[in-house]
């Protein structure tokens, strides 16, 4: 309903689940609508496709002007979104999105952190480290979230694409993206593969879990490259000779803000942007403590 006056839009937002990164998204969104008359309805779908569907249906009944969705499943989320579009609601994706054909048809815009880029950024840092510190070859362990979330697969792809072929073997891979599960997994992984000298954590939980383990198991030889930035991660990297050397942070706050702005723009009649708008990864390295401190201070 773009016949409305600018300012009094209602936007329904779905989030995947409750996590620091996702809080950054919503924080950015909230900040973006400060002052403008736009109201946000934010609900989490708890990584449950059917709950997501019911959320979207509820937004439809509430006659929201637009829905900003972080779809759980490339296919599974389509029908609900289609219902929304058929009900004349503008739908945009952020973070993740639905499969392409449907997306072209239904989605008025898609903003995401460059997932592959995140992986690549981490990968490049790792590649540098491998040539400089590991004499050109690494035995890598992966703590993954890709069994549960497609974007993690893209991150993995990006990460490997940045590594010189033959410069690494992936010797172990375990699915563990919640920190209390990830830590024991990392620990067992290190035990099973003493030769292991580099861990890639596909998300915040796995990166933290790996870093903590390397410390507590005193495996000085092993270093962690991760994805996502949180105060906890920053703090870990600021410690003396940190285990977590590098993380490719999503600029989640910016993503959230831009996503809302894009939505409002579309509602105001600016033509929708069909191609994906990528928010660049922000590199955080243990070698540059000042950026890390800055990150933490912003959130004090």
């Amino acid at each position: 309903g773009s016949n409305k006056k600018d300012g009094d839009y209602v936007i329904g937002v779905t989030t995947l689940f409750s996590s620091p990164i996702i809080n950054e998204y919503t924080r950015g969104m909230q900040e973006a609508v400060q002052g403008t008359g736009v109201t946000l309805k934010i609900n989490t779908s708890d990584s449950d496709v059917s709950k997501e569907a019911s959320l979207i249906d509820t937004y439809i009944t509430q006659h929201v002007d637009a829905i900003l969705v972080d779809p759980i499943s490339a296919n599974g989320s389509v029908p609900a979104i289609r219902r929304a579009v058929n009900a004349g609601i503008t739908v945009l994706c952020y973070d993740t999105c639905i499969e392409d054909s449907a997306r072209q048809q239904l989605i008025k815009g898609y903003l995401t952190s460059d997932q592959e880029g995140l992986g690549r950024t981490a990968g490049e840092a790792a590649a540098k480290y491998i040539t400089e510190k590991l004499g050109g070859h690494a035995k890598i362990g992966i703590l993954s979230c890709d069994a549960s979330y497609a974007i993690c697969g893209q991150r993995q792809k990006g990460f490997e694409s940045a590594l010189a072929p033959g410069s690494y073997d992936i010797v172990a891979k375990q699915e563990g993206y919640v920190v209390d599960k990830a830590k024991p997994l990392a620990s067992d992984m290190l035990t099973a593969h003493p030769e292991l000298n580099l861990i890639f954590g596909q998300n915040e939980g796995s990166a933290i879990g790996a870093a903590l383990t390397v410390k507590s198991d005193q495996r000085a030889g092993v270093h962690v490259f991760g994805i996502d930035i949180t105060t906890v991660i920053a703090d870990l990297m600021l410690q003396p000779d940190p285990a977590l050397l590098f993380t490719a942070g999503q600029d989640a706050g910016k993503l959230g803000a831009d996503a809302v702005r894009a939505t409002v723009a579309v509602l105001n009649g600016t033509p929708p942007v069909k191609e994906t708008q990528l928010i660049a990864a922000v590199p955080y390295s243990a070698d540059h403590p000042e950026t890390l401190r800055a990150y933490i201070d912003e959130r004090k």
Partner: protein
Amino acid sequence: MKTDLAEPAATELVRPARPSLLARIKHLDHIGLLTATVLLFVVLSLCAPYFMTTKNLLNVLQQSAFVGVIALAMTFVIVAGEIDISVGSAMAFASSLFGVLVTDHGWSLPLAALAVLLVGAVTGLLAGLVRVWFDVPSFIVTLALFSILRGLAQMLTDAVPVQISSAGFSQWGNGDVFGVPVPAVIMFLFLAVSWFVLTRTTFGRSVFAVGGNPDAARLSGISVGRIRALVFGLTGAAAGLAGVLQSAQLSSGDSTIGVGAEFTAISAVIIGGASLFGGRGSVVGTFLGVIFLGLLNNGMVLLDLSSYAQGVARGVIVLLAVVISTRREGVRLRTLLGFVFRRARS
């Protein structure tokens, strides 16, 4: 005797006094739950905008249908004095299997659906047989199944949702019959059937007998083991059905669905007035319980509660609902409050 467990207070020590008038009229059960539901309904229609729209109420029905089907079957399990916490995983497994059969193996939809229901029923049956033969509490057997089926589902799909591209199919999940969502229609059919089976057939009576006093049942020639195994076959099939419907709604086979469904279903059954110790329960009560929970979830979103607050509110309200609906004679809120205060004082 089991019921001693169900109502410790109701054993010889404190026998129910001669039935009060209130108790007499209450032979249309569920008065407590009904009151609660109506209350919730009124509150929401007053506070929550858009709640009282046909569209929204139909939504609630559709959203409740999936877990509803499971809860109805769960009623049999619980009346028989058992419990099944594997249904959520079973749903995911069914959905995944369905996706794989249709998309990767090109089975026809009805055939695949049938196969999935069958597999579900058989899995449940096997679980039931393990419970019976080795006399392991069903909580444990189904806990194991809970972990096994989720794993199998992920193996089948490699945890990547399997697209099921067929316009007709998504109608199973999203279409409607004279405006009523298909899943809701199916739930109603299932309600009618299971009501009839539980209250009118020998199987239903036997379920009550087994739940109420297994020894008595055994002595009267009721094959306790068979009944126990069968009820798990029932939840298995129901989970299969729910899985297929869910796949239809999502037009894909997905191994991540159904998390926590077991808890919702069990809550619904208990809210519906069944006893976890067997021998007591009704599908109508369960249905009310399902609707109650559906309204609750829907209402909390409409009221813009934060997802955190929703968790808290859900817990509290479910507990209240159970307390109200399981008071022996109907609602009796007075006594309830009196209770709290008396305790508070002493």
